[in-house]
C-alpha cells in the first residue's frame, strides 16, 4: 500500500516507512557479519581476537539500531538518550577495568605486585621506613632491604614469622586480600611467600590462600576471595580450616 499524503492533518503521525527490501538487505548484512565473526574466531590472533569480535558486534549493533529500530529516521533526541546510555556504559567499564587491572598480587608490606609485569602495583605502603623510626625487627629490616631491590628479591623468601600457620600456595588467579598495616609484618611475609610460590606455579593449580584468617585480620573482602576458591580447592592443604 502506498503511503498516504496528508496536508490538512491534525497532528497525524508521519513515521518513516522503510521498504521491505531495505530490511531484508540489512538482515543479509547481519548474517554475513555473523558468519565473518564466527570464521575469524578460528584464526588465532591473540589479543586482537577480542577487538575484532567487538568491532564486528558493534557494526551489527549499529545496523540493528539505525535501521531495524529506525533511530536513523527518528527524532534526534531519541538518539541522544540511547547514546547517553552508551556513554555511561563506557565510563563504568573503562574506570572499573582501569582500576581492577592495576591491582596486583599481595607482595611485601602490603604492596602488591602486578603479575603481568612483576613490578610494584600502584599504591601501597612506602618501602622506606619513616624518618627517625627504629626498626628492631630483624625480619622487617631485612624486608626493607630486599624491597629496595624490587619485587623479585622478595620472592621465595622463607616465612620468618613465629607461631604463625604455614602459608598455603595461592593460585595466581585467586585474589588473596588482606589488610596490611605495618604491624602485620608476619602476615605480610606469609602472604608474600604464598604469592612467591604462586607466581612460580602454573596458574591452573587449585589452591586456597588464607594467610591471616587465623589472626582475625581478614577483612570482608577476603571472604569473596576465599569463597571463590572454595569449590575449586581440590588439593589444597589448609591447616587453617576455620571457616
Amino acid at each position, binding site marked *: 500500500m502506498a503511503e498516504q499524503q496528508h496536508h490538512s492533518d*491534525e497532528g497525524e503521525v508521519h513515521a518513516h*516507512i522503510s521498504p521491505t527490501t531495505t*530490511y531484508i538487505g540489512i538482515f543479509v548484512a547481519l548474517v554475513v557479519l555473523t558468519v565473518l*565473526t564466527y570464521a575469524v574466531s578460528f584464526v588465532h590472533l591473540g589479543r586482537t581476537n577480542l577487538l575484532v569480535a567487538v568491532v564486528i*558486534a558493534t557494526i*551489527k549493533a549499529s545496523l540493528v539500531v539505525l535501521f531495524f529500530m529506525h533511530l536513523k529516521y527518528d527524532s534526534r533526541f531519541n538518539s541522544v538518550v540511547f547514546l547517553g546510555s552508551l556513554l555511561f*556504559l563506557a565510563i563504568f567499564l573503562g574506570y572499573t577495568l582501569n582500576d581492577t*587491572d592495576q591491582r596486583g598480587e599481595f607482595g611485601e608490606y602490603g604492596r602488591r605486585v602486578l603479575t603481568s609485569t612483576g613490578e610494584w602495583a600502584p599504591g601501597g605502603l612506602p618501602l622506606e621506613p619513616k624518618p627517625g623510626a627504629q626498626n628492631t625487627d630483624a625480619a622487617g629490616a631485612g624486608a626493607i632491604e630486599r624491597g629496595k631491590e624490587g619485587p623479585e628479591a622478595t620472592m621465595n623468601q622463607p616465612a620468618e614469622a613465629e607461631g604463625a600457620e604455614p602459608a598455603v600456595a595461592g593460585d595466581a*588467579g585467586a585474589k588473596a586480600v588482606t589488610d596490611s598495616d605495618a604491624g602485620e609484618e608476619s602476615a605480610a611475609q606469609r602472604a608474600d611467600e604464598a604469592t612467591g610460590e604462586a607466581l612460580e606455579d602454573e596458574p591452573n593449580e587449585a589452591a586456597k590462600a588464607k594467610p591471616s584468617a587465623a589472626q582475625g585480620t581478614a577483612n570482608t573482602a577476603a571472604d569473596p576471595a576465599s569463597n571463590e576458591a572454595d569449590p575449586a580447592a581440590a588439593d589444597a592443604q589448609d591447616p587453617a580450616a576455620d571457616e
Partner: protein
Amino acid sequence: MATASEAAETEHEHHGPKWLQHHFDTPVQQFDAAKLGMWTFLAQEVLFFSGLFVAYGVYRSWYPEVFSIGSHLLDKNLGALNTIVLLFSSLTAALAVRSAQVGERKKTSIYLIVTIVCAFAFLVVKYFEYSHKIHVGLLPGNFWHADPAHLGMPANAVLPANLHVFFGIYFMMTGVHGLHVVIGIGVMIWILIRNMRGDFDQKFFTPVDLTALYWHLVDLIWIYLFPLLYLID
C-alpha cells in the same frame, strides 16, 4: 476501522480517536512521547546489562585462561544458530511494524507469529545447552561438579581453578537475557491478540512499534553476548 473511530469521535468529539489519550493534544505528540519513553527504558536496559558486562570484563581480565577454556566448553555452533535465529526474528519484528504502518493487519499478525516462533526456537536451543551443562556439572559457584573425563578430555587433565566463575557469569548473562526473551514472548503474544482484535491501523501502530523496539534490544544484547562468551580464542 472507519466505523470504530467515527463512533469514538462522536463520543470524544473534539479530542480525537479513541486511542488518543486525554493528556495528549495530537496523535503525533502521543507517538513522540511514547517513543521517547521507550528509548529511555531501553537506555535503562543497557545500563541494567552493563553491570553483567563489567563483571565479565573484570573477571576476563583477571582470569584470561579460565575464560578461554570455559569458552571452548561452550558449543559455538549452537551459539551461532541462536544468533541467526534472533537476527531473523528481528527482521520479522521490523516487518511486523512495517505492515502495521501500512495498515496490513493480517501480515502484521503473521510476522508477529513468526517472531514468537523464533523466540521459542531460541529458548529450545538454550534448553539443550543448559541441560548438557547441568548434566556434566558445568555449573556456577558451589554447584560446580565437573570433571575432565565427562568433558571429552583425558582423565588426568586439570581444569583451571576458577572455571566455576566463568560459568557463573555465563549462566547469569544468558539467563537474564533468556528471561528477557520470555518477557518479550509474553508481550508479543499480547500485542498479537490486540492486533487480531483490530486495535491497530495505519494511524495507530505505536504498541507494535514499541514491542519491536524491545525485541530488537534483546537481539542487540545477544549480538554482544555471542562473541564475548562463545568465541573467545
